[in-house]
C-alpha cells in the first residue's frame, strides 16, 4: 500500500488547522493592524466621547456620512449591477477595456479623482453647457458623486465575480424547465452570488465612508452640507485633537458593527472577501 508522503498520521485529521509557523508568520501584520486601532480606543476617554458626541458639528458629520454612503450604495446597486452582469457574462469586443475602466477609480489617487470630477461636472465642466450651468460642486450631491466614483468599482468587481461563478448547467436546466431570463436571474444567479454581492456592497460602503480626497476637492468642506466624518476628523485634528479622536472612534465602531452584522448574516463565508 502506498504511504501518503509528508502527511504524518496525527495531522491528517487536522489539515484545516494552520500550523504554528503560519500563525507566527501571521502575527506581525495582525498586530500591525490591531495596535493602532486598540491605541485609538484606549486614547479616548468615555466622558470625552459623551461631551463631544453632542456637539452639532459632530452630529452633522455623522448624519451626513451615514446619509450619503447609504445613497451611494443604493445607486451603486442600481447602476452597477448591469455593469457587473455585462462583465461577467458576455464576451464582447472591448470587454478588457471595460474591465480596465472599472479598475481606474481604484487605482487613481482620490484627489486626482476629485479634480477629474470637477473638470467634468464643475461650473466650467464639460457637461456644464449641456445642463445650462451645473451647480453640483459644494453640494451633498457632489459628496455622493465623489463616493460613487471611488467606491462603486468594488461592488461591480465583486458582483461580477459572483455572477461569473454560477454554474451554467443550473441556468440551462432552469431554461429547459421554462424559466424566463429574469426568473433565471432572480431565482438562480442572484441567490448563488449573494455572498459576493453582499461582500461587494460592504466594501463599497466602507470605501465610501472613508472617502476624503475626492470629496474635499469636488464637494468642498462645509459643516452640515459636505463635511463628512473623514473631513471633520481631518479639520478637527488641526483644531481639537479630541474631536478628531472621538469621530475616529465613532467611525471605527460603526464600521465594526456593520461588518459584524453582515458577516454574521453571511455566516462566515470568508472566501468571498
Amino acid at each position, binding site marked *: 500500500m502506498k504511504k501518503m508522503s509528508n502527511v504524518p498520521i496525527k495531522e491528517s485529521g487536522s489539515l484545516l488547522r494552520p500550523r504554528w509557523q503560519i500563525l507566527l508568520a501571521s502575527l506581525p501584520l495582525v498586530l500591525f493592524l490591531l495596535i493602532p486601532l486598540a491605541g485609538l480606543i484606549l486614547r479616548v476617554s468615555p466622558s470625552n466621547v459623551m461631551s463631544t458626541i453632542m456637539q452639532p458639528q459632530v452630529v452633522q458629520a455623522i448624519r451626513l456620512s451615514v446619509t450619503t454612503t447609504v445613497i451611494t450604495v443604493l445607486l451603486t446597486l442600481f447602476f452597477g449591477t448591469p455593469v457587473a452582469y455585462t462583465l461577467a457574462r458576455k464576451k464582447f469586443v472591448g470587454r478588457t477595456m471595460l474591465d480596465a475602466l472599472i479598475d481606474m477609480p481604484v487605482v487613481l489617487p482620490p484627489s486626482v479623482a476629485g479634480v477629474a470630477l470637477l473638470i467634468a461636472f464643475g*461650473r466650467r465642466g464639460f457637461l456644464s453647457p449641456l445642463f445650462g450651468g451645473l451647480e453640483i460642486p459644494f453640494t451633498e450631491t457632489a459628496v455622493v458623486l465623489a463616493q460613487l466614483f471611488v467606491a462603486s468599482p468594488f461592488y461591480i468587481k465583486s458582483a461580477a465575480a459572483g455572477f461569473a461563478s454560477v454554474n451554467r448547467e443550473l441556468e440551462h436546466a432552469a431554461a429547459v424547465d421554462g424559466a424566463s431570463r429574469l426568473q433565471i436571474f432572480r431565482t438562480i444567479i442572484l441567490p448563488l452570488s449573494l455572498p459576493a454581492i453582499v461582500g461587494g456592497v460592504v466594501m463599497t460602503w466602507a470605501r465610501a465612508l472613508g472617502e476624503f480626497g475626492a470629496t474635499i476637492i469636488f464637494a468642498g468642506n462645509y459643516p452640515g452640507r459636505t463635511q463628512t466624518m473623514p473631513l471633520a476628523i481631518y479639520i478637527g485634528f488641526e483644531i481639537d485633537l479630541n474631536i478628531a479622536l472621538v469621530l475616529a472612534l465613532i467611525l471605527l465602531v460603526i464600521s465594526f458593527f456593520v461588518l459584524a452584522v453582515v458577516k454574521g448574516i453571511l455566516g462566515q463565508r470568508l472566501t468571498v472577501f
Partner: protein
Amino acid sequence: MQKILVACLLVWLAVAFQQKAFAQQTKEKELTVFAAASLNEAFKAIADAYESTNPSEKIAFNFAGSQQLVQQIAEGSPVDVFASANIKQMNEAVKSGRIDSASIRVFVRNRLVVVFPKENSAGIHSLRELSKSHLKIVLADKAVPVGQYALEFLEKCNRSAAFDSSFKQKVLDNVVSYEENVKVVLSKVMLDEADAGIVYTSDISMNAGERVGTLEIPEALNVIATYPIAVVRNAPLHEQAEKFVRYVVSDEGQNILGRFGFIPIK
C-alpha cells in the same frame, strides 16, 4: 519551512537596509523647514538664493496650512525651522514644547485681498457686493491663519460705517467651502468654481495674479498678517537653521519676500 525562514530573513534584511539608508539621509545636511502654504514660491526662491551662496547646504520644505504643520510638529516630526502665517499657530507650537518662545522673531508681513475668477460672471466690482445673495464664496477654515484673518476683516467691515452691520453674516452665508490652506482657496477661484475668495496679496503677486481678478481691500479695513519664524528646540541642524533664519531676515531675504508681494519688516 526553509522557505519561510528565507522569506523572514529577506524581510529583515530589507528593513535593516532601509534603516541604514534613512540614517544616512539624515546625516546629509538637509535642513528641514516647515512653512505656511502662502510662503511657497517666496521661500523656494529664498532657498535657491541661499543654496547658490552655500552650495554644500540643501533645504527641504514642507508647505501646508500652518495649523497642519503645528500638529505635525507637536507629534514629534523632525524639523529644524518653523515659519507660521500667524502668531496663534506659533504659540500652539510653543505650547507643544518644541519651540522656545525666546527664539521667535517676526520676519515678514502680509495683507489680504479679494480674488474672483477672470470671467467674473457673478459681476463683483466692490467689496459690498460680497454680501449679495447666491454668491459662492470660498474661504480658508478658521483654523487656518488666512481664514482667521478673513473673519477679522469681515468684523472690521461690520464696524465700519460704509457697511451694513449684518455684512459679515451675509458674506458667511455665501461661503460654500472652508479649505485647509490658502492655495486651495486660490485654485478654486481660478477654476471658476467659486465666485470669490479671500487670499493674501502675496498669492497674486506672480503668475496667479494674471489668472484672477482682484479687489483691493482699503488699509482701514485690511488685516495685517504677521509671520513669525523660529528655530525648533534641539533642532538636528541647529547652526544651519540659525543661519537660514538670519538669511530670511537679512536684506537679501527681505528683498525676495518683497518681490513676491509680502511686506518686509524693515
